């Protein structure tokens, strides 16, 4: 029965699909045009209270630093 209903999602768009993302090869190497390293970006993220809460709730949480290309600026995304 589930088949009959999941199919509506077949049209489902997702702004993320197909969008280019680069993964930081080294946490200590700044990509061109960047002023901070991936490690520093990760530290900024992990200093946030919401991230600390998430870490307590999900102890197995592991951070990954990526460089999204679809925002058109120099930013890290810590996921």
């Amino acid at each position: 029965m589930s088949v009959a209903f999941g199919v509506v999602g077949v049209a489902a768009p997702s702004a993320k699909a197909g969008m280019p993302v680069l993964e930081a090869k080294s946490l200590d190497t700044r990509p061109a045009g960047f002023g901070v390293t991936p490690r520093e970006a990760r530290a900024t993220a992990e200093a946030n209270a919401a991230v600390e809460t998430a870490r307590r709730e999900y102890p197995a949480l592991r951070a990954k630093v990526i460089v999204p290309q679809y925002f058109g600026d120099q930013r890290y995304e810590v996921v």
Partner: protein
Amino acid sequence: MIVDVHVDGRSGRLLELWTGPQADTLLARGYDPSVGRSQNAWYVWLPLGLLFLLPFMDPRRPKRLIHLDLLVLLSFGVSQYFFNRGQIDVSVPLQCIPLAYLLVRLLLVAFRPRPSGGPLIPVVPVAWLAIALVLLVGFRITLNAIDSHVIDVGYASVFGADRVQHGEDLYQRGGDLDDTYGPIMYLAYVPFEALFPADGPSGYRAAARAAAITFDLLVIVGLLMLGSRMRRGRAGRELGIVLAYAWVAYPFSLYALQTNTNDALVGALLVFGFLAMSSPPLRAVLLGLAAAAKFAPLALAPLLLTGRRRSVRDAMLFSGVVLATVSVAVLANLPNGGLREFWDATLGYQLSRESPFSLWGLHPELAWAQIVAKAGTVLLAVAVAVWPRERDLRQLMALGAAVLIAVQLCASYWLYLYIAWFAPLALAVLISTYGSESQQQGRTFAPNRSKILSDQSYV
């Protein structure tokens, strides 16, 4: 993804922090520009909404039900407002209210059809709407050319057509949106990709735009023809103009066009499917094509199996043709991994998706209610094959739109794009309730045609 943190790569400053469903779904964040670009702008949305509403408003009959019907159709805009602000905890419940209203309203039309005595267009002449229809079509195409964008639904369709053009396997990405549609969807894009190759100077955008405009025009043509199918002579032509006008003035038909998705193709195929109601094999081919494009229309198979009259021969013919259409489309495009790989890329992929764009996705604790809703939808889809026993084309379209809405209501993923699937049928059902009085007055119709708007006038 549990948390998504954006950090400025130059200053190290925290830019954005997302938790909950928005951590994993960009669409749920209300980023600017909004999905549909200028369709969201007040100076486009509000005038269109007024153009959609005003011709049907009758100041002498403020309690006309069409007033409420059209306002409800526009009320998706309230949900859209919050969606654009990233407040999906508000937008998702608000999208369910008009869906639920339309479901009930269309079922009432199907089971208790009562053509109204009110005029179709109370104030303005139909000729004005014909002129406005042409102008609005021009406006929509112009807006598409200068300020639309192609979201993944559009480019995935073009890339699929590109694979067909290059003799590659259509299904090779394991879903992930690039190859998750039925084969007919990609084949429908082949002519556009041939004209505007994805690897050409304009990339995938030109083909996606050309396809979206064509699908939109097909809905318009279908509605023009539907008017003549529902009423004879001039009254039918006028009804067709009014239906096509309502479509082009409806902000959520523009939503599909402005995002250059393939959703209007589903709406068009279904309109033509109902137009072909008198021919079991033809309506079977059209339903088969719609089902082999986006699967969900298959929910209309029991309804269209019986159509207006119950005949074992017709039912067998219909079933055979639907099965053959879907089978040929799928088998001719089967990947090396066979049906298993096809399943994994299409339905299997979709069934495993999670989304915050439905009550069920936003509130997993409502899983039990989703099961109830699914069971109810299955019952509805099957029951309408035989119930109500006597039905005309308008009732059949009401049932078809209701089944589509029921399927959408219990799905885990919903977006405003899907309104284009049922809106043509719903508009035809709700608007064609009216018209008899204007004929009697002889104001916009020939006086001697008033009787064709009786209960029996619907084909």
